[in-house]
């Protein structure tokens, strides 16, 4: 009986105390477990900074200037060392030489093992051979990178995105007159280049992973005979040159981790 009474008393006290409205509410402090991921861009022509419509000298003395250098990146991902993947966003990025950085969202703190990104558009979205897929006319928002672009990054006649579009001019004798236009419009699913870069960092909330994509547009033309290898739309007889120039672009690209990514205090 006594036990029963004490139990009821304890219960009553519990009710009473739990109904007090002015009790201080104890909550856990907000802990930021998010790690930002940024991709920086560094465009060069050899040891010089790169810009469109700027004249550069090749090793053979010829002068070149680029008038267009735009490309797609897609599906950035951070992988941990257990094989887990965190998809970053946006999924698609259109990169021009005036872009300095892309904010790719956040991952949770932990171990960031690898950074993966593709040059080009994934085959699920990119149409090929006239098959159905994402079309530029699907988009209401002109800011979507897959919507129509001023430099026409889509082949309607082959229905696929142009992954890399580079155009320019060459002055072979460096006599002040541009002799030849070069145009490399590179695409179709086979051309996509997946790039994986070691990050290997233990990151905590508030840290930032800074990756940098360096492109050397001198290296892009290294070994290219601009007298004969100046035009490809990646199709037909010019497909072998398209394949070569896509490999040239791939070789001109370096992706690395910038700094240790730790937040500064």
């Amino acid at each position, binding site marked *: 009986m006594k036990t029963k009474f004490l139990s009821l008393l304890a219960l009553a006290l519990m009710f009473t105390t739990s109904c007090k409205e002015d009790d201080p509410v104890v909550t856990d402090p907000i802990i930021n477990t998010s790690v930002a991921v940024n991709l920086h861009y560094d465009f060069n022509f050899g040891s010089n900074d790169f810009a469109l419509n700027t004249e550069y000298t090749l090793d053979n003395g010829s002068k070149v200037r680029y008038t267009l250098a735009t490309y797609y990146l897609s599906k950035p991902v951070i992988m941990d060392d257990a094989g887990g993947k965190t998809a970053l966003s946006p999924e698609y990025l259109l990169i021009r030489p005036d872009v300095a950085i892309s904010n790719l969202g956040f991952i949770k703190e932990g171990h960031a093992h690898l950074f993966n990104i593709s040059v080009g558009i994934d085959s699920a979205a990119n149409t090929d051979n*006239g098959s159905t897929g994402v079309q530029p*006319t699907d988009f*209401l928002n002109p800011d979507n990178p897959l919507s129509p672009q001023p430099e026409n990054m889509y082949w309607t*006649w082959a229905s696929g995105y142009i992954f890399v579009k580079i155009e320019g001019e060459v002055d072979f004798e460096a006599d002040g007159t541009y002799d030849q236009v070069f145009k490399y419009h590179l695409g179709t699913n086979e051309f996509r280049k997946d790039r994986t870069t070691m990050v290997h960092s233990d990151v905590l909330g508030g840290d930032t992973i800074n990756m940098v994509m360096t492109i050397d547009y001198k290296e892009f033309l290294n070994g290219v005979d601009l007298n004969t290898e100046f035009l490809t739309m990646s*199709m037909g007889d010019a497909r072998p040159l398209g394949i070569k120039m896509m490999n040239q672009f791939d070789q001109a690209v370096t992706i690395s981790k910038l700094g240790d990514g730790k937040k500064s205090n």
Partner: protein
Amino acid sequence: MEKRVTNILLKLSNIWKGGLALISLSLLFSACVKNAPLVLSEPKAVLEVAIPHFPPMPIDSGKFITKGRAELGEDLFFDPLLSRNFDISCASCHLTNSAFTDGLKVSVGTEGRLHNRNSPTLFNVAWQPYLFMDGGNPSLESQVIGPIEEHREMDLAFTEAIARVAADAKYPARFQEVFNLPVSAYTLSLALASYERTLVSYRSAFDEYYYYGDSNALNSEEKKGLALFTSEALSCVSCHQFPLTTDFSFQNNGLHDDYTSDPGRARVTNNLAANEGQFKVATLRNIALTAPYMHDGSLANLEAVIAHYASGGSAHPLKSDLIRGFSISAPDKAALIAFLESLTDTVSYKSVY
């Protein structure tokens, strides 16, 4: 302009009344009401084209036709605003009085630039599973970008086309009215595609005879031509299958030995060994109005076309097995041509345009 589209809709409604085709025009907000009176003046009413002897018109969700969309698309189709130099429109190469072709060997674009292909008819493009002669594009909407950007056609960046239409005095308000959306890649292409989907050709003398039991619709010579057309010896119908008069397959018909100037389907697939010289089988509806013929306009008239197939064509290794040559007498050739002429539509556009 408005009258033209209205006439199309009225014409379609007349056909509905005649029982030859079912045109279901349902109000967006009362789509379930059957036997509701047709309200052809309603710009947002959904027009569903269902022709009994045709397969269903394939339309993706949300891309339905309305009077407003078709009218807007028609205005854009005839507007040189979409060409770099404001000198040509879609209708420059797709003339209404030539079954939406231009009568030229190859088309002429802005600044007189020559294309390397003959202008195809736009009739029944709604049923095309892929666009262009090499099938390089999957939808009427994204196809719109092609001729606008192509340097031998209108040569205007599509983003610039959107900007021009958006800056025009009349179009932005109409886009809002029709789509409740601003001018964009989506709405501009959908407007043009909607108009193109209304270009339906289905009621020729052949249709009256073959599908609707009018034994007098074809004369004896045309009937003889039909028999030749469907004969095993000529094999025309193997690819030009009824009712659309095409199976949309890609065929090398032995037109040339050398396709260097235009590899056809191989341009898209990058596979010369498998696809060189293959082009999509063209519709024969209104064929009498669409000379010259073939992808490059190299055959001036129907006599030349029949002579080509009778000869067996070139010795190209990818030539279709169906192109094996045949003997045809002069009267039979005349009968075959008479049949082909009976494929000329007598309803859907002649009285409209």
